[in-house]
């Protein structure tokens, strides 16, 4: 049975901040303060997702992660770190992390990422067509239809729409889009996401007036299921 989210974080204040935030989102969380506790809990109980701090007393986060993956436990793991260095990110992802978040982070960013992790469609289901509301895309033919009419998108706009549709109904943050659509693991401090989003929106709205993409102020974007 699924028992919510395991938060392995030794800093009491950060752990509290995460727990309260998750509570507000209706997610139950269990806290572990050391690497050994985290490993023990993750091995014995089943969680929807594990939030794992890199720096834990005793066994460090990356070691916990390696042991979990070695024990064939595939619970999605989001690695938290105070280090934003490129090498650290690569090491974390190689150890089997599903996502990576650098401290300090906004709760909305964490929540969006956890949501995406928990509802992730396993890759085994090779999706070739996604339909959300009146929008549908064909991933093989790279075609987009809105209200049954074809739309022409630039490759980057297509990737953007695909990412939004795969996560329909959930908020995708600007940084998540930068990572997934542009493969940028840094914030270039420019408005490229906004510009592409407004172009995509304009193209979608040209055929059907109701707005399919919702802007969540200060957080990101969400594809509406009902438009």
């Amino acid at each position, binding site marked *: 049975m699924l028992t919510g989210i395991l938060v392995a974080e030794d800093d009491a204040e950060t752990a509290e901040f995460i727990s309260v935030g998750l509570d507000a989102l209706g997610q139950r969380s269990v806290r572990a303060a050391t690497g050994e506790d985290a490993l023990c809990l993750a091995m014995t109980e089943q969680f929807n997702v594990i939030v794992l701090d890199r720096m834990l007393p005793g066994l460090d986060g990356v070691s916990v992660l390696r042991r979990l993956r070695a024990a064939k436990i595939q619970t999605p793991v989001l690695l938290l770190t105070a280090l*934003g*260095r*490129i*090498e650290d990110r*690569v090491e974390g992802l190689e150890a089997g992390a599903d996502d990576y978040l650098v401290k*300090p982070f*906004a709760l909305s960013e964490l929540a969006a990422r956890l949501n995406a992790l928990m509802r992730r469609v396993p890759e085994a289901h090779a999706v070739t067509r996604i339909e959300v509301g009146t929008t549908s895309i064909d991933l093989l033919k790279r075609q987009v239809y809105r209200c049954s009419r074809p739309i022409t998108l*630039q490759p*980057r706009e297509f990737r953007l729409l695909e990412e939004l549709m795969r996560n329909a109904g959930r908020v995708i943050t600007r940084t998540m889009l930068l990572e997934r659509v*542009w493969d*940028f*693991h*840094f*914030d*270039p*401090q*420019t*408005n*490229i996401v906004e*510009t*592409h989003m*407004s*172009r995509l929106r304009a193209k979608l709205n040209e055929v059907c007036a109701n707005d399919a993409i919702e802007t969540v*102020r*200060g957080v990101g974007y969400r594809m509406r299921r009902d438009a």
Partner: protein
Amino acid sequence: MMPLRRCVELATECAVMRSRRDSAAYRIAFTYSAAFALATIALGSFVYFTANAAFMRQLDARIEAESNELVADYRAEGPGELRETIATREGGNVKNRLGYAVFDLHGNRVAGVLVTPRPEVGWQRISFFDAREGVERARALAVDLSDGTRLVVAADSEALEHIDRTILALFAVALFVVIALGVVGALILGGYLRAKIGRIGATAEAIISGDLLQRMPIGTRNDEFDQLSRTLNRMLDQIAALLDNLRQVSSDLAHDLRTPLARLRNQLDRALSGPEDARAQRAALQSAIERSDEVLALFAAILRISEIEGGGVRRSFARVDLTALVTELCEMYVPAIDDNGRQFSWTVQPNIAIEGDRELVAQAIINLVNNAQVHTPRHSAVHVQLTEEDRNARLAVSDNGPGVPAKDRERIVKRFTRLESSRSTPGHGLGLNMVAAIASVHRARLLIGDNAPGLIVTLIFPRVDA
């Protein structure tokens, strides 16, 4: 009991000796002198033994020739003639003359004046009695004659021994001089080295104790010490510049952070004291969050620059297809720049690759393009060009805006530099600084020039084969 003063003197002497023994300068100098002394001894021994052997051979040859002559004489004309010949030779007043004796079977001397017992046949050293000088040593050759008598021809080896003694004495004096000069030289050289190094050490100590303006003394000779001092001084200048920079950055950082933090504070203050309208308060909080995001972004940029400057990113360097990357970024930027009312164009040569970090290179290009569109008026043209030049990849971002005065071009690369003319535009003055850090970590050159009109920023990367 030893008087106290003598005790102290001894202790001081000991300390001086010990400090000399522990000194590398003295050790090297003394080892050098010892090597010279050893070489002198080796040379002396060689000369001594070679000369000795040569003189010995010469002596033996003389004895042998004489002996052969006498034997021939005896054979030709008999014992009587032999005795006469010997007597004649002994009678002549010749310098370095040889000694002769003929013994019968019973060991009685029958001819010659050499006073010595009957020797064995062959080469040997014998002792003989000389009326003036007593018992002396000689080199002798004894041969048997056909009538059973034994002929002995001997040469006094005193002359040889005299030469040997002279050689040894000369070398002893030479060795003494070498050792004496060596010790004196070693003391002088050691003292000189110690004094030189000591001065550098004392300066370093002074710097450690806080006097950062101290510099190593430099002599007039431009020797190794002066070169070392010069290098150390350059290092100290560099450290001082870095410290200065650090101080500058800290104060700039504090200054730059004060503005957004003060605005944030004011906003929160307004939200608190304003009308208790829930929507207005939400809006105020929302914009407060945006302000704090700005501060966080500033910090993130500073940390990123430090990470890049640290050079650790080099470990993850790989081949970057610059042609593809620049094309991709330009295509990505068209909408943003067009929407801003500027014209954007690019020319990209195919098959240009460099060694580096894709994200960092992308960041540099983004920062340059971003600067070009932020610091130019509407309807300006922004152009990106990627070409190959002398096996280098040349990436230029140019615009036809107001440009940057020549005197400011060096300054704008520095951290937190914002020219007066751009005070009103968004940004925190880190964009070009980050480009400079990225260029440096990629061993690329960053050039800022006049596009007449406008600004042209060029990055020249060392190319790798595509």
